[in-house]
């Protein structure tokens, strides 16, 4: 973890899985629970990771796949659609994939697209997805600056079905209060706007005022994480509570490298409100390794830290759209 990191990752309590949730004991991995505190200073941007899940609603073994309808061993699934939920695959070729559930019946769930590599026998878990309300509070309990519009309020960008969408907390002016789209300040309040699985939050705080703390609680997740990425920018959550580096992460094996920042995917990391871009130089003059987008002839950047608590702004712009983050030192 960087010295300048403001992340206070404390009180991560190891709690046996069996004590956590009714389905947790069926999981093939041990789990911990805890709290992550991240300061959001005024006047700067922050890339916020959402590393924890509130609870494990269900887990078991896939009985049929891969199609958009996935059979599971649980006989009667609970309601999974009135609030957003997703299914994460915990083994097999699709290990790490987590996608939103769009429908469910007794013992099967429906997802938007076929999960490549999924096969009967693979293990899964079903978890609630984060929403604006679950992260920041339905009435902005975190204390971001509200306003009558996005020009004066702090802005929160999340991915909704692959699209970056801006929100702010409207607390004054005509049209009531609540979480509104920056593009539609008079539109409906959307506290339950669903944040795409395995993605983070991009917060822009206006200048002035004081820092606020974002406390996230829940179960930490383990094993590799494989979010769905789309062309262009993706705010991807780094769910791990241990720091790793660009070099140690093996991220280069799951994204597209190139001769320069224009022919490779780009990973933007935030520290102290400053974004720095990195790409994996895999060809051309000047050797291979991680390089800064603004210093492609500069030093190798393999030692740059992927800090816990910080999301990754990933620009998918070359090759096949893909991204996988392995659990540090275990995956």
């Amino acid at each position, binding site marked *: 973890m960087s010295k300048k990191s403001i992340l206070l990752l404390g009180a991560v309590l190891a709690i046996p899985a069996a004590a956590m949730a009714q389905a947790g004991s069926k999981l093939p991995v041990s789990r911990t629970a805890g709290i992550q505190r991240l300061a959001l200073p005024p006047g700067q941007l922050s890339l916020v990771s959402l590393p924890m899940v509130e609870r494990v609603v269900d887990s078991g073994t896939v009985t049929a796949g891969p199609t958009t309808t996935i059979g599971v061993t649980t006989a009667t699934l609970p309601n999974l659609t009135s609030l957003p939920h997703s299914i994460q695959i915990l083994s097999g070729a699709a290990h790490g994939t987590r996608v939103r559930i769009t429908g469910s019946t007794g013992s099967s769930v429906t997802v938007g697209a076929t999960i490549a590599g999924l096969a009967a026998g693979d293990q899964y878990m079903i978890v609630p997805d984060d929403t604006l309300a679950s992260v920041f509070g339905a009435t902005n309990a975190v204390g971001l600056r509200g306003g009558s519009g996005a020009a004066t309020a702090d802005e929160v960008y999340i991915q909704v079905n692959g699209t970056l969408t801006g929100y702010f907390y409207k607390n004054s002016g005509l049209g009531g209060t609540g979480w509104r789209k920056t593009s539609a300040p008079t539109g409906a309040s959307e506290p339950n706007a669903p944040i795409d699985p395995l993605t983070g939050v991009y917060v822009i705080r206006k200048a002035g005022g004081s820092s606020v703390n974002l406390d996230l609680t829940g179960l930490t997740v383990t094993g590799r994480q494989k979010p769905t990425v789309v062309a262009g920018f993706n705010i991807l959550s780094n769910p791990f509570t241990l720091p790793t580096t660009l070099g140690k992460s093996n991220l280069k094996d799951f994204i597209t490298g190139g001769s*320069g920042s224009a*022919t490779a995917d780009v990973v933007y990391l935030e520290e102290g*409100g400053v*974004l720095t871009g990195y790409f994996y130089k895999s060809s051309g003059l000047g050797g291979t390794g991680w390089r800064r987008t603004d210093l492609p002839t500069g030093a190798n950047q393999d030692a740059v830290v992927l800090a816990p608590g910080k999301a990754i702004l990933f620009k998918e712009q070359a090759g096949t759209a893909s991204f996988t983050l392995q659990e540090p030192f275990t995956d």
Partner: protein
Amino acid sequence: MKKILTLLALGTSLCASQAAVTLNSSNFGNGLVTSDNLALATGSLRFGVFPAIFDFAANSANLPALEAAFVQVYAYTGAINEFATDGFFSISQSIDNTASFEGQSYASSIAGQKIYLWAQNTGATQQAIFSTSTTWNSGVGLPPFESNFSPDTGAPGLVAHIGTLAAGQDLGAGAPAHMLAVVVPEPSVTLSVVMGGLALLVRRRR
């Protein structure tokens, strides 16, 4: 070369709308050679925009027409050399997105347009013009405010409007270099010069 360039210290800082965007550009995947297949050691690298409907084929030798159509945002002139190897460049340049370039407002006329690289040898007797799908960043909205442009093979939408892709020797990139084309005067221009010369000669004899 990079020493004389203005580098942004550390990526891009926050602002919903800020007064600078960053152009990052390099060509380590191919490099550039002249028409006689020698590394382009010196010359100019001009970054800007051409009109989307500009007819490069018809104007490839018409430098005045090319100049008139081109809006230059940034240019570098000097040695083209990186890693002690001719033919390669690396640029990171801060661009004022509130400024105007050749009378064109960056915000209203350049942002969002495709980036063109016009490479010329010293003396501008040879040239190549490239574009990709990369556009000039507006500097408005969500950071990062940077445009990463490269004429390397594999860059999405790469086109050599003038010059030839991957037609030269391997300069050390592990792939053929892109080749500049000789600026051949148009027949009409040549004819005008000849006729003008003849007219001058006739006038002197009189």
